[in-house]
C-alpha cells in the first residue's frame, strides 16, 4: 500500500532522511520509531505529499504503487491524524467531520452516514453538537483520529496519537487502532512509547539520524537486537542482577551455590532494542 524506495530528503546540510526503503504489507500496523530528529516526521510528510523527496520515490495504492501523494486527487486514499490536535474548536465535532468529509468529496446521505459512523467510532455521538473547545483532551484526541478516517481511507497515518492523554483515553485509542486494523486499514503509527508499538504494531521500523536501523516484527527485532534479559536475584540480604538468555539455567546455577529467596526476570523488550540500536545519548 505504501512504498518508500531509496528515499532521501535534506534541509540545507541536514540529511533528515537518508536512503529510506520499506514497503507496507496488506492489513498491518506499521510502527515507525526513532528518537527526536530521527526523520520520522519528515518521512510522514513525504508519505502524505507535503514534502517532495530529493531522491527516490514514495508511492502508494495498489500492487503497482503507481500513485504519487504529491498529486491532490491521489491523497483521497490517505488519512492523517497529526501529532497536534488539528480541529476547528469553535464548531462541533459533527461539523468538523462534515467539513473534512466535504473536502474529501462526500455529500448527502453518504456524508451523514460517515459522520455518524465516525462519531460512534470516537464515542462522541452524545456530544456531537457541542463545540470542540468544551471537550476534554481525550475526546479531542479521539476526534482527531476520527477526522482522519472520515473518508474511509485505506491508509491511515497516526503521528503520536496518544500524546498527552490519560491511561483510559490511551486504551480507548488502542482499541480504535485495533478496530481500524480489523477493518482492513493499513496503519503507519509513530510513537515514542515502546509499549504501544509492542502492543499494536505487526512490524516496526527503527530510524535514527535519517537512516533505517532495523525493520522487522517485534519478536524478530527482540531476538536479533534485544540481547540478554535481566535476572534480579535476592539471597539473604544481598541483591544481584545477571544478564542471561537462559533465565532458568542461570537460576539453577545460583541455587546450587546459595539459597535464592526472591528473583525477578525481565526479558528484553522493544525499549531494549531501541536503546541498543540508537544508543543512550540524549537527542535534541
Amino acid at each position, binding site marked *: 500500500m505504501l512504498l518508500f524506495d531509496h528515499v532521501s530528503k535534506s534541509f540545507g546540510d541536514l540529511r533528515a532522511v537518508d536512503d529510506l526503503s520499506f514497503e507496507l504489507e496488506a492489513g498491518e500496523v506499521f510502527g515507525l520509531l526513532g528518537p527526536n530528529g530521527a526523520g520520522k516526521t519528515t518521512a510522514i510528510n513525504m508519505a502524505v*505529499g507535503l514534502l517532495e523527496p530529493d531522491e527516490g520515490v514514495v508511492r502508494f495504492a495498489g500492487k503497482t504503487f503507481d500513485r504519487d501523494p504529491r498529486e491532490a*486527487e*491521489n491523497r483521497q486514499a490517505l488519512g492523517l491524524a497529526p501529532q497536534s490536535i488539528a480541529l476547528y474548536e469553535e464548531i462541533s465535532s459533527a461539523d468538523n467531520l462534515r467539513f473534512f468529509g466535504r473536502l474529501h468529496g462526500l455529500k448527502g446521505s453518504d456524508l451523514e452516514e460517515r459522520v455518524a459512523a465516525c462519531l460512534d467510532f470516537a464515542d462522541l455521538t452524545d456530544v456531537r453538537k457541542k463545540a470542540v473547545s468544551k471537550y476534554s483532551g481525550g475526546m479531542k484526541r479521539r476526534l482527531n483520529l476520527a477526522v482522519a478516517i472520515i473518508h474511509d481511507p485505506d491508509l491511515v497515518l497516526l503521528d503520536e496519537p496518544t500524546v498527552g492523554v490519560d491511561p483510559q483515553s490511551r486504551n480507548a485509542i488502542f482499541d480504535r487502532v485495533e478496530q481500524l486494523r480489523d477493518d482492513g486499514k493499513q496503519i503507519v503509527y509513530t510513537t515514542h512509547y515502546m509499549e504501544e508499538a509492542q502492543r499494536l504494531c505487526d512490524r516496526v521500523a527503527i530510524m535514527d539520524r535519517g537512516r533505517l536501523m532495523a525493520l522487522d516484527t517485534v519478536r524478530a527485532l527482540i531476538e536479533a537486537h534485544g540481547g540478554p534479559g535481566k535476572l534480579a536475584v535476592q539471597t539473604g540480604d544481598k541483591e544481584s542482577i545477571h544478564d542471561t538468555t537462559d533465565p532458568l539455567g542461570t537460576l539453577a546455577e545460583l541455587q546450587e551455590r546459595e539459597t535464592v529467596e526472591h528473583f525477578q526476570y525481565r526479558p528484553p523488550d522493544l525499549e531494549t532494542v531501541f536503546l541498543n540500536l540508537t544508543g543512550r545519548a540524549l537527542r535534541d
Partner: protein
Amino acid sequence: MNKIVAMAAKDIQILFRDKLGFFFTVFFPLMMAIFFGAMFANLSRGPASIPVALVDEDRTAGSQRFVTRLEAAGGLALDQIPQEQALDQVRRGQTGVMVTLTPGFGAALDNPFRITPEVELTVDPTQFAAAGMVRGILLEAAGAELQALMSDTERIQATNDQNRRLIEQFAPPSPARDDFLTFIDLSARVPALVGQLGLDGAPTDAVSGGFGPPLEIGQTEVQAEQRGPSNSYATSFGQAMLWILIGGSVSFSMSIAIERSRGTLMRLLVAPITTRHLLAAKGLACLTTTLVTSTALITLGITVFGVTPTSYPLLALALLCGSICFCGIMMALSVIGKTEQAAAGVGWGLALPFSMLGGGMVPLFLMPEWMQRIANISPMKWTLIAYEGAIWRGFTLNEMLVPCAVLVGIGVVAFTAGASRLRWDTG
C-alpha cells in the same frame, strides 16, 4: 526583589526574542517618529505647495497682477486653466481647490472703496484643510495688494479721482456726499501718514485699518455644484467602507495564521485539494465578506442617511475592485505573519502608515513631496478615489477605469506574491 527582577528580565528577554514584538517595540515607533518628523519638518518650512486650479474669468491687468502676487507668495501650485477643466479636476480628485476670479475682480482690486474684490472657491469636500490654507494665502495676497495700493500715491490719487467723478456725476449734493468726498481726499494722504507713523512691517490690517476684509471669499463643494444636493455622509460612508476593507483583510490574513498554528492548515493541505483550492477559498471568503458588509453599509447610507450615489453600476464596480485589491493584500499579509498575533500586528502596522499616506488621516499637502509620491502606491488612496468617484464625484466609466485598474493590479500582485510564499510549514 531578586524574584521580581528575574521575572522582569525573563519578560524582556522574551520580548526581544520575538522579532515582531521587537519590531513594534523599537522599529515601529522609529518609523512613526520618522514619518511625523518628516511631516512636521515640512510644516516648519511651510507645507509643500497646494495644487490649485485657477480660473481667471476677469482677465484684466488687475486680476493678472493678483495671480502674479499669488505665485510670488508661494504655498500654491497654480495651474491656470479653463473653468470646465478646472472643475473636472476638482471633481475627479486631482486638485483639491479651484479658485475663480470672477468678472470685475481686477476693477474691485484697484478700487476697494467701492466694492470688495470677490473670489469663489470650489472645493473637494475631502480637502477642507487645504481650502483653509488657500483662503489664508488669498487673504494675505489681497491684503498685500491693498497695502500696495495704499502705498502708491499716484494709484490712490487716480482711484480717488475716478471715485470723485462717479459720486459727483451720480449722487445729488448732500452733507453725506460732502463728507464722503472729504474722506476720499483724506485717504489720498494715508501713505504719507503711514510713513509718519512708522508702521513698516506691521500687519496688513493695521496698515489698511478701517477697510474691513480685503477679499470676499465664497465657497462651494464640488459635488453640490455638479450633482445636486448631498450631505457629509457621502464622504464619510466612502471612508467607512475603506475601513471595512482594511479590517476584513487583516482579519482574514489572521485566519491563515490561525489555521497554521492550530494545525488545520496541515490537514487541509493533506486533503485531496490543491493549494489553489485553498487560496481560492480564502480569497472567496474575504471577497464575499468585504463585499457583503460594504454593500450593507452603503445601503444603510442610501436608505437612512440620504447618500445618493451618482452611479450604482460604477459603485458596484468600485466595491468589487476594492475588495479584490484587499483580498490580495490579505494573502500577502497572511504569509508575512506566521502567527495570528504576528499577522494582526503586521496588518495593522502597515494599515496605519498607508492610511496616513493615502490622505485619509493627514492631508497630503502637509507631507513632503517624497511622501506624496509614495502615497501614489497607497491602495487606500485609490480605493477612496474609486468609491468617491461612484458616490459623489460623478465619474464616468472611463474615469473609473484608472483607479479600478490600479486596485485590481495591486490585488493581483499582492495575491500572487502571497500565494507563491504560502507553504504548509507549520512553524
